[in-house]
């Protein structure tokens, strides 16, 4: 550990690092009458408005008038108020903030992808259809499951698709059942998706290891239960080592085992969900397969399914015909239908295929790196922060603020103070079963130097919490804005600019 960082005095109020103006007006406030930010060719056909006036609007009052130069400045300045992975470790647990290869961005912008239309004739869209087909084959190989739909727009929509397929399969046997079981450590989208798939949610209490208790499962797993939604490894970064028993119990009552694959990055290329008895699993291309998060999206949430669920896959599927050509199959009578327009977030398929191709049969190195890095952080912070569950750590480790609360320091304060040391905070207050959680996921794309610097900062904050708690409680001190009044925002709602 670099002692020097820990010894030096940390950033204090007034040490703001941002030299440029901290305040950027709204783009609407930069507007000035008569300015233009676009150019169009002159109209080369007769001018006409062949729509009755009552169905038209007179103008776009309130919209901007601004030059291209000012737009460039505005969005460049705004961007500088953001933290990004290209800057430093972004240890948001569960979010898998890894490096985003730029060649993936480049190829996704080729005109044959970015300017292609989903309803062009199939014979002139063969490259796009083949790309989707290839990605499906690869994801099927990685998961050990029969087929994959690429349609869902993100993980949450994948969850919904998966549970709807389970519902359709059960309904075909006469009874869709009423309940989905979800451990108390699960992500919020799991219960929300189960609800929108028409199920009641029953929460299962985790055991002292932080994993699913087989007795709890056996008691809850009745013939009224459609599925167990299990995150593997779970949100504590702990692998369900009894996964085979879990699958046996669920299948024994005729239920389906759903896997939230948000954490697939910790065992991709090393073990296969299909072999674990998992029947259906979503993946987040924007986590495991490195498509960029873009400040909140877009993602893509492909769902892999076992043979028993194949008939129910969303429409359409991509098929390779006997003559070698690719085509869409809309004629799938047992399909759950569509979840959205067209094939899905195709631009993310391009990036994911580029990413997986870069690793090829070395894809397991992603998981090896992620697990090594998380364990290294765990070793570096053991004893300094409280670890509620000490089962082996996979790709992320969940500490808590328990040792710091005595001095009035909470997880939130620790996260905010990390900003002063140039890091993004970990995920705070999730999973819900760890009070004051600090959920740290470094990913495989962090160097040892970066991890050491992060550990040093975390240790330093632990010391500050005892010696100078005020500086932690009032952090951050160096960011473009200080602590933001979130309660005030919800109380006095201002959700738009008004002319």
């Amino acid at each position, binding site marked *: 550990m670099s002692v020097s960082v820990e010894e030096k005095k940390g950033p204090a109020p007034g040490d703001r690092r941002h030299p440029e103006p901290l305040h950027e007006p709204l783009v609407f406030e930069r507007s000035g009458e008569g300015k*233009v*930010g*676009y150019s*169009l*060719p002159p109209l080369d056909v*007769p001018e006409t408005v062949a*729509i009755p006036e*009552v*169905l038209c609007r007179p103008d*776009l009052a309130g*919209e*901007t008038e601004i030059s*291209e130069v000012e*737009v*460039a400045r*505005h969005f460049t300045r*705004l961007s*500088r*108020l953001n933290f*990004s*992975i290209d800057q430093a470790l972004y240890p948001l647990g569960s979010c898998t903030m890894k490096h985003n290869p730029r*060649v993936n961005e*480049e*190829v996704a*912008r080729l005109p044959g*992808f970015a*300017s*292609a*239309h989903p309803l062009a*004739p199939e014979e002139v*869209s*063969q*490259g796009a259809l083949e790309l989707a087909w290839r990605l499906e084959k690869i994801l099927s190989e990685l998961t050990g499951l029969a087929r994959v739909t690429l349609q869902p*727009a*993100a993980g949450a929509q994948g969850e919904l698709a998966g549970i709807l397929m389970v519902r359709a399969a059960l309904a075909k046997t006469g009874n869709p059942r009423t309940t989905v079981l979800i451990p108390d450590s699960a992500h*919020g989208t799991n*219960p*929300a998706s189960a*609800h929108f798939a028409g199920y009641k949610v029953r929460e299962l209490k985790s055991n002292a290891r932080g994993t699913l208790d087989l007795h709890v499962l056996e008691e809850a797993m009745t013939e009224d239960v459609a599925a167990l939604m299990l995150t593997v490894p779970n949100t504590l970064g702990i692998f369900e080592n009894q996964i*085979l028993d879990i699958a046996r119990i669920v299948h024994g009552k005729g239920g389906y085992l759903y896997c939230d694959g948000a954490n697939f990055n910790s065992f991709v290329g090393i073990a296969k969900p299909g072999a674990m008895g998992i029947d259906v699993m979503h993946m987040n291309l924007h986590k495991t397969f490195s498509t960029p998060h*873009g*400040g*909140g999206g877009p993602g893509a949430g492909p769902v892999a399914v076992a043979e028993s669920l194949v008939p129910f896959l*969303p429409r359409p599927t991509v098929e390779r015909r006997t003559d070698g050509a690719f085509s869409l199959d809309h004629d799938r009578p047992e399909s759950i239908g569509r*979840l*959205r327009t067209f*094939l899905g977030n195709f631009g993310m398929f391009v990036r994911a295929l*580029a990413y997986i191709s870069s690793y090829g*049969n070395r*894809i397991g190195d992603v998981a090896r*790196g992620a697990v090594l890095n998380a*364990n*290294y952080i765990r070793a570096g912070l053991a004893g300094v922060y409280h670890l509620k569950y000490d089962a*082996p750590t996979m790709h992320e480790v969940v500490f808590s603020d328990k040792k710091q609360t005595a001095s009035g320091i909470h997880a939130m304060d620790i996260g905010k103070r990390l900003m002063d040391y140039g890091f993004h905070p970990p995920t705070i207050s999730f999973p819900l079963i760890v009070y004051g959680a600090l959920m740290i996921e470094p990913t*495989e*794309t962090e160097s*040892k130097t970066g991890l050491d610097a992060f550990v040093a900062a975390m240790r330093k904050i632990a010391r500050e919490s005892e010696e100078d708690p005020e500086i932690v409680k009032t952090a951050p001190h160096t960011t*473009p804005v200080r602590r933001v009044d979130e309660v005030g*925002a919800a109380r006095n709602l*201002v959700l738009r600019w008004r002319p």
Partner: protein
Amino acid sequence: MKFLPTSDADRSEMLRAIGVSSVEDLFASIPAEVRQPADLPPPLSEIEVRRLLGSLAARNANARESAFFLGAGIYNHYISAIADQMLYRAEWLTSYTPYQPEVSQGTLQSIFEFQTHVCLLTGLDVANASLYEGASALVEALLMASRLCRGRTRAVLSAGIHPEYRETVRTYFSALGFTSVEVPIGPDGRTDPKALARAVDADTFAVAIQSPNFFGVVEDWKVGSDAAHAKGARAVAVVAEAVSMALLAPPGEREADIACGEAQSLGVPMHFGGPVLGFLACRAEHERQIPGRLVGETRDADGRRAFCLTLSTREQHIRRERATSNICTNQGLMALASNIHCSLLGKKGLREVALQSHAKAEYLKREISKIPGWRIPFGAPTFNEFVAEGPEPASPLLSRLARRGILAGVPLSRWDPDAPNRFLVAATEMNTREEMDRLVAALKAGGTGDRQVPRQDRP
């Protein structure tokens, strides 16, 4: 591997610090029976990745290399170079959802601006930070209406709503015990107002119409609003060609309660159908039922203006199975693209794009209607897209044209087998008169003749 920054020496040191002898030891909790390596080809270098993806891209006809008239929910509009180049900035591209406002003011302010653009375009008070795309945005709008009319179970949908949107509604509704009833369009291409009013009953929570509808025809939102409000239901306005909002009366002004749909045509490339940009806007009194993320204005500890995510108690990470939606990841970067685009074009540019698109479509419609044997089946006004009907089945004709470098339209036969000769034609400011004349000439010739636009050849 260039994405992995750990050297062998680092790894040995790290393993020593952890107290294990190999990385494989860290996987001990995965049962041996389920461990299987992936059977994939060897890793590709950057050159080979470019080659592989380049060869796949080269086999797709696209708007850069064709005369292009496809629409049906995805449109080819002008996007300034600066918009896409801005998206390359790491601060936008590689950041996460702005849960930590002190280090995310850029994203938060951009979303606030995007919300404002959507409000100005729809004439409503509140817009969210984005949804996946148009079809699921309609579902979210309908589910929101169902919460505003608790206990009711039906939604009435115009058959002029994009067929893939309606199919998506059926998928989501199937598990929730809701039904959707479809009201046919009349002979002029508009939803029949009387049939619509008749379809609404006391069990109806929403009435949804699309304008321009799937056939390009301009509808009056007020027809939907009146039908809904007469029975205490909510009026949902669906927009699949968002450029139209710069010319047509906004949903809010024509008394719609919720506007939703697809904003791809405001600054987002077509991307073979995704990522695109779902949006949803509503009235202030319903803001607590809105799905998805919302950004609000507030102050920081020093009293400066700042932005943060707000009303999160509606969302899945807090409310779990009682959340207003299961959405988490949305289409953030596309909302940024759209904010940049709307800001650049602004008051005059958005309108000019709409006017040019409309004028070009009118020209093309008139020219096609003059071809012997061709007609425009729907008489009501259209915006920038219309149905054309020729003397022969559309699909083979369109395929012939595609091989000649003209992507002339979208056949309607997939959704309406009884109309094999009909297809949708869209025009935008990107089309030139020369291209449109070329299309008309090609239709006259039955889609035969030489290829006229050079295209990158197969590798």
